[in-house]
C-alpha cells in the first residue's frame, strides 16, 4: 500500500505525471546556490584580497591588517608605483612585439601546414601528423635543459628574436584545430576554384583562409594567452632588464621589495588586467578553444 502522500496530474499531452515535491526541490535549490556561493567565495578570495590590498597606500598597508578595507577604493598610487618600479611600460612593449610576431607567424604556418596535410595525400603525410602528436607528449620543462644549451650555442639567449622564433616552435593544438576545420570545408570548393584557373596558393589564401576565421580567432586567443603568460622560458632566455616581458616583470618584487604587498598586489593586478579584458570579450571562443584542445589528446 502506498503510505507516502503523492499527488499526480495528467499534463496537457496526456502524460501521467507526478507533481514535483515542492519543498524538497526548494531545499535542494537553496543547497545548490549555497554551495555555488561558498565555492565562488573561496575561488575569488585570493583575487579580491589582492584588489583590497592594492588600493592601500604604503602607510595604510603598514598600519592596517590585511582584512581591513582600504579608506579609498580608487587609490591608484600603488598601481603607479608598481608600474614604474617594475618598468612595466617597457615590459608591455616587449610583450606586444612578441605577441604580434608570434601570433601572425604561427597562424600563417599553422594554417599552411594544416592546408597541405588535410588537402593532399602524399608520402609522409601520416608521418608528419605523427611527429606533431608525439611532440605534444614531451613536457616542455624537460626539453628546456637541452634546448637551453642549444640556444646558448646559437647565441640566441638574451635576444628577442631568438625567443620569438623559439616560441613559434610547435603549436600542435592549433594545427589540429585547423585540420579539423579544413576537413569540414567541402573539397569541391577547392576544385571549382582550380577549374576556374586558381593556383593552390590562391585557393589557400583567397578562399580557405577567410573561411577559417572562427578557428583562427580561437587559436590566436589561446596561443596568445599562452605566450603572454609564459614565464619559465621568458625568464630563461630574456635575462637582461630591457627585454623583460609582462609575465616576468613581477620578479622585480622579490628581494628587498618582497614584503610590500600593496605594491606586489597592484603589480599582479596590472599583469592580469589584459587577460580579464580578453576574457570578458571572448569568453565563448576561449571555452571553445579549451574544449578543442582536449579533443586532440
Amino acid at each position, binding site marked *: 500500500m502506498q503510505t507516502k502522500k503523492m499527488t499526480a496530474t495528467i499534463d496537457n499531452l496526456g502524460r501521467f505525471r507526478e507533481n514535483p515535491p515542492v519543498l524538497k526541490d526548494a531545499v535542494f535549490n537553496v543547497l545548490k546556490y549555497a554551495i555555488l556561493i561558498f565555492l565562488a567565495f573561496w575561488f575569488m578570495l585570493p583575487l579580491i584580497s589582492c584588489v583590497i590590498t592594492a588600493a592601500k597606500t604604503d602607510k595604510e598597508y603598514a598600519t592596517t591588517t590585511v582584512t581591513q578595507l582600504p579608506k579609498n577604493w580608487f587609490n591608484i598610487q600603488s598601481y603607479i608605483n608598481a608600474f614604474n618600479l617594475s618598468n612595466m611600460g617597457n615590459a608591455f612593449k616587449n610583450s606586444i612585439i612578441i605577441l604580434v610576431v608570434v601570433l601572425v607567424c604561427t597562424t600563417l604556418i599553422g594554417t599552411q601546414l594544416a592546408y597541405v596535410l588535410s588537402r593532399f595525400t602524399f608520402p609522409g603525410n601520416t608521418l608528419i601528423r605523427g611527429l606533431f602528436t608525439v611532440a605534444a607528449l614531451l613536457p616542455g*620543462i624537460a626539453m628546456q*635543459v637541452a634546448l637551453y644549451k642549444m640556444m646558448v650555442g646559437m647565441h640566441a639567449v638574451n635576444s628577442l628574436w631568438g625567443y620569438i622564433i623559439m616560441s613559434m616552435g610547435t603549436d600542435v593544438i592549433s594545427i589540429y584545430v585547423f585540420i579539423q576545420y579544413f576537413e569540414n570545408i567541402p573539397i569541391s570548393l577547392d576544385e571549382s576554384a582550380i577549374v576556374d584557373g586558381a593556383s593552390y596558393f590562391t585557393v589557400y589564401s583567397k578562399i580557405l583562409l577567410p573561411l577559417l576565421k572562427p578557428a583562427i580567432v580561437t587559436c590566436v586567443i589561446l596561443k596568445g594567452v599562452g605566450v603572454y603568460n609564459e614565464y619559465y622560458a621568458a625568464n630563461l632566455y630574456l635575462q637582461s632588464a630591457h627585454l623583460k616581458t609582462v609575465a616576468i616583470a613581477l620578479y622585480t618584487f622579490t628581494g628587498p621589495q618582497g614584503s610590500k604587498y600593496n605594491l606586489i598586489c597592484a603589480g599582479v593586478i596590472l599583469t592580469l588586467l589584459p587577460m580579464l579584458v580578453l576574457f570578458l570579450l571572448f569568453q565563448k571562443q576561449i571555452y571553445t578553444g579549451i574544449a578543442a584542445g582536449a579533443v586532440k589528446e
Partner: protein
Amino acid sequence: MTATTIESSLSPDVPDNKRPFDWRKGIIIVAFCAIPLTLLVVFTYLPFGQMVGFSFYRMKYIGVPHWVGLQNYRQIVTRPDILPSLKLSLYYMAGSVLHISLALYLATILSFRVRCGNLFKGLFFFPYLINGIAVGFIFKFFYTRGFIFDSVLQWCGFSLNSLPYWLKDQSINNWSLVGASVWRYMGQTMILFIGAIMSIDQSLYEAAEIDGANKFQQFLHIILPSIKTILVLNVVLSVTGALSVFEIPFVITTGANGTGSYFVLMDRIAHTNQKVGLASAMAVVLLIVILIFALLQQILFKFLFRNQDDGVKAAKRRARRAKRQRNRIAAGKAPLLTNGRRQRAYSLERGQ
C-alpha cells in the same frame, strides 16, 4: 591553368600513383611544410636527441663533457633527494580526486539553468588565465601567517595559535600547494566537462523524467556514461600531470621546505648546479614514465570502451576486408576457392 592539372586533380578514377606528377602540388607541399617541420625538428626533436645523449655525460653548459656511461642514471636512484621528490606527486594525485569531483559537480550544475550561471562559470575559470608568477605572489600573500587564509579561518573560530604555517610546516605545506593547484586548474577541467555534458541529447532527460528518475539517477545513468571518455582522459592526464608537477611549487615556494617536486629539482640541478648530464637523465626517466602512462591510457581506453561502437568497428573491418577481396578479384588474383572467412566477407558486402 593547364589541362593536366585539372585532369590530375579532378579525375578520381585514375589511381594516385598512375597520375603524372603534379609539380605545382609538389611545390606547394614543400613550401608549406618546410618552415613548420624545420621548427619542429630544431626546437623539439633535436634537443630531445641531444638530451638523450647528454644523459650519458658529466657536463656543464660550457666546457668539455666527460663520458660517464650510466652513472647519471645510477645517481637518480642513489641520490637521497630525487626519488623522494617523486613521492610528492602522491599529494597531487590525491588532490586531483578533489579537483575532478569538484569540476564534475560544478559542471553538472552549471550545464543546466542556474541564476548567474555564466558569472559562476567565469569566476571558476578565470584563475586558469593568470600567469604563473602572479599565481605565486597571490598565494604567498594568501598563505602568509596572519594574512588572508588565517584571517578567514579566525572568523570561523580558529585561534591563530592553533593554525600551522601553511607554506613552511612540512606536514601541511604540500596540501597548501595542492589547494593552489586546484584553484588554478579546476576551471579548465570544469569547462571540458560542461562541453561534454552540453552535447548530450536533451530529450534523454525528458524521457528519464517521465520514467520518474530523479536528478541523481539522471546524473548516474545519463550524464556519467555520456562523458565517460573525457572523464577517464582527465583521470589519466591528472596522473601524468601529478608526476610532472612543476609550476605551482616552483612559483610559490621555489621548492623550499620539502615541496620540491621532481621537475623543480631537475630545474635546480640543471640551471643552478649546472649538472646538465644528471638533469638530462632525470628528464629522460620521467619521459619514459610518462610515455608508459600514455601507453597504459591507450590500453585502458581499449579495455573500458571495448563494447562501445562495436558494431561500427566490426562493420568497418568487414568493409575493409571486402574491399581487399574486390581488389584482388579485379586484379584477377583472387583464389577461386576462398576459405570461409573471406567468402563470407565478400558475400556480406554484396548483401547476401
